[in-house]
């Protein structure tokens, strides 16, 4: 790296020392000039527009959509924005968010994972089975770990078939959708429903933090986010690199802080009917943790960078020396692994697993959630946060229409319309990006 630095600093290496010095001086000058480094608000807006033109609409559309949905449902039914319903909606949405997080890995490559729903189901079944006395009542941690490793192995199988044999992901994971459903049914046998006997596993989606712990955890998370975001932006500004203006950074951090405080206030309000229920559900914390981990993996590591590169231009990635097969296989492993976590949340919420798990519908909702959140079906564009926001939209539609007493039929139609609208936005953004 040292050598590279030197080389890039002195591009005129062979032309003698004086020339090199002059070059280094001009380079330093350019490094802080507004030509290349955006510092002012105007330059930052220009950068934002450039990203928008390139199809990176960010989270704005989905946030606007979420506000619109909230206004509509709240005006139809004043129960929509009660603390009990909001928490319920978020817990319902946790499975969608988690499955959408799984789907993001496949979508970023320009692929799809149709098996995620039944891989999730299988994960719940494996966990529940290992907890039964028939299998020696495994400790909860071991049972969950075994289920998640099994899911990772499934992802490895999918990924290997797709990358090494060059099979289309659509077909391989369609096979997975059927096959893993079969395996799941075979494990469950004719029993139909298998209750989960472990309290910790059941608490995953049903227990809450104490109100005090909710405050502490949220404030620590917001402070950590604010600190790292501010420090990073300040460091980049000091070095003359592209950074948002300080006002932007403050607004961003303040927005997250307000969202955190509102969330805790909503969660800590008593939402019980017979006995008081207060505090933030554990499952929300789990979703935030996984979404954060995958955000860092995709946004701040070279693996993540390679995933985006493959989704954007696989040939360019190949010529850059990226090992395509390895990265793509790992994406399918991560997708199935994350789907496994979704399955455990699903099982925990019902305190049981049964043959009724509809993995087909679940995976379609997951794809819809990721795309509604702003992830492109065409690969290369999308973030972990998109999966979370899209999952909330899907859950809100489901919940709001349920409150109004709409039938499942009309709920499906509305979800479909929102999905098509989201894909339309994606396709239009993509087309305007490629007309260059």
């Amino acid at each position, binding site marked *: 790296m040292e050598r590279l630095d030197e080389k890039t600093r002195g591009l005129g290496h062979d032309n003698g020392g004086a020339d090199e010095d002059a070059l280094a001086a001009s380079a330093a000058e350019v490094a802080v000039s507004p030509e290349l480094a955006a510092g002012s608000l105007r330059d930052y807006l220009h950068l934002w527009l450039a990203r928008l033109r390139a199809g990176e609409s960010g989270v704005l559309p989905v946030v606007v959509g979420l506000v619109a949905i909230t206004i509509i449902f709240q005006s139809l039914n004043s129960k929509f924005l009660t603390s009990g319903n909001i928490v319920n909606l978020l817990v319902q949405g946790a499975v969608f968010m988690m499955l959408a997080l799984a789907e993001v890995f496949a979508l970023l490559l320009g692929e799809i994972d149709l098996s995620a729903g039944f891989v999730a189901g299988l994960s719940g079944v494996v966990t529940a089975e290992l907890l039964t006395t028939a299998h020696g009542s495994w400790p909860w941690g071991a049972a969950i770990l075994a289920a998640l490793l099994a899911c990772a192995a499934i992802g490895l199988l999918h990924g290997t078939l797709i990358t090494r044999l060059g099979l289309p992901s659509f077909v391989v994971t369609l096979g997975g959708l059927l096959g893993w459903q079969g395996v799941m049914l075979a494990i469950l046998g004719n029993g139909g429903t298998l209750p989960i006997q472990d309290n910790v596993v059941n608490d995953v989606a049903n227990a809450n933090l104490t109100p005090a712990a909710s405050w502490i955890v949220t404030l620590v998370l917001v402070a950590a986010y604010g600190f790292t975001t501010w420090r990073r932006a300040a460091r980049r500004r000091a070095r003359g690199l592209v950074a948002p203006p300080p006002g932007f950074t403050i607004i961003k951090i303040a927005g997250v802080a307000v969202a955190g405080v509102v969330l805790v206030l909503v969660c800590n309000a008593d939402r019980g009917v017979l006995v008081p229920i207060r505090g933030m559900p554990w499952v929300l914390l789990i979703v935030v943790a996984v979404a954060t981990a995958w955000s860092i993996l995709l946004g701040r590591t070279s693996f993540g960078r390679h995933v985006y590169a493959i989704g954007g*231009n696989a040939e360019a990635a190949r010529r850059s020396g990226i090992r395509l097969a390895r990265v793509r296989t790992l994406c399918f492993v991560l997708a199935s692994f994350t789907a496994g976590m979704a399955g455990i949340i699903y099982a925990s919420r019902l305190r049981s697993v049964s043959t009724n798990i509809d993995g087909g519908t679940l995976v379609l909702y997951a794809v819809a959630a990721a795309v509604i959140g702003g992830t492109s079906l065409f690969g290369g564009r999308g973030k972990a946060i998109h999966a979370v926001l899209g999952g909330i939209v899907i859950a809100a539609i489901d919940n709001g229409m349920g409150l109004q007493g709409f039938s499942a039929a009309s709920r499906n139609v509305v979800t479909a319309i929102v999905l098509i609208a989201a894909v339309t936005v994606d396709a239009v953004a993509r087309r305007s990006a490629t007309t*260059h």
Partner: protein
Amino acid sequence: MRPVPGVRVQVGRDRLIAVPVPVTASRDESLPGESPRSPGSRLLELRSVSKRFGPVLALRGVNLVVPAGEVTALAGDNGAGKSVLIKTIAGIHQPDGGQIYWEGRPVHIRTPRDAAALGIQTVYQDLALADNLDIVQNMFLGRERSRAGLLDDDSMETSATKALAGLSVTTVRSIRQPVASLSGGQRQAVAIARAVLWNSKLVIMDEPTAALGVAQTEMVLDLVRTLAERGYAVLLISHNLHDVFVVADRLAILHLGRMVATGKIAEFEPQTVVSYMTFGRVQPSADTR
């Protein structure tokens, strides 16, 4: 086409090369006015390089010298073997006969990685940039700098800015804008800067101005000149003779896999170049004038 003053090049001198050529022992041309054994400025040298694809002889005993600090243009009609030649240098094809010398030493370039290790970078015609990534991300694609497992974006951005500034590329508004939002010329500039970033000594460019408008072409040609002035060797494939005469120091013309003429650009006239490209020799009659 701009008329270029100069004398007719003296080529086609019969000369047998000492290096054995298994595939074809053809008569070869050497550089006019230069001793074939003098190293020094010769960064890359090909001697009697041949390449066969089944029954097709794509390259027949090709000799070529690419000196540092100069732009060498490679011209030729479709099917003349230009692409095969640069792919052989870039490690995508293996020569069947002959020898490649790098800084005077014989080398075997078996893979693109070998070529990169020597300091040979290729800028492809289709650019090979990821539209969804920004300029910095593209320039460091496949060789990201990390610290403690996380990407060191600050250091990459600083180096990318310096590399662009060093090539006098100042037309991009922000180095953090996605490549999709750049013009064709700017994309070419990013691709070239990317090639330069990797400790490279020789930059091979395949039709860098093929898809560009007039102003964009000017910008890219300026960039090519800048590269040569900074001491890089540039090997440029071009169909556009105007570009060749504007930017190149040396010209090498391929015809049906044979190197029919090489020399300094001043030794050529556009008409003779066309004649070499089309017929492999200078037409004695006036019908090409």
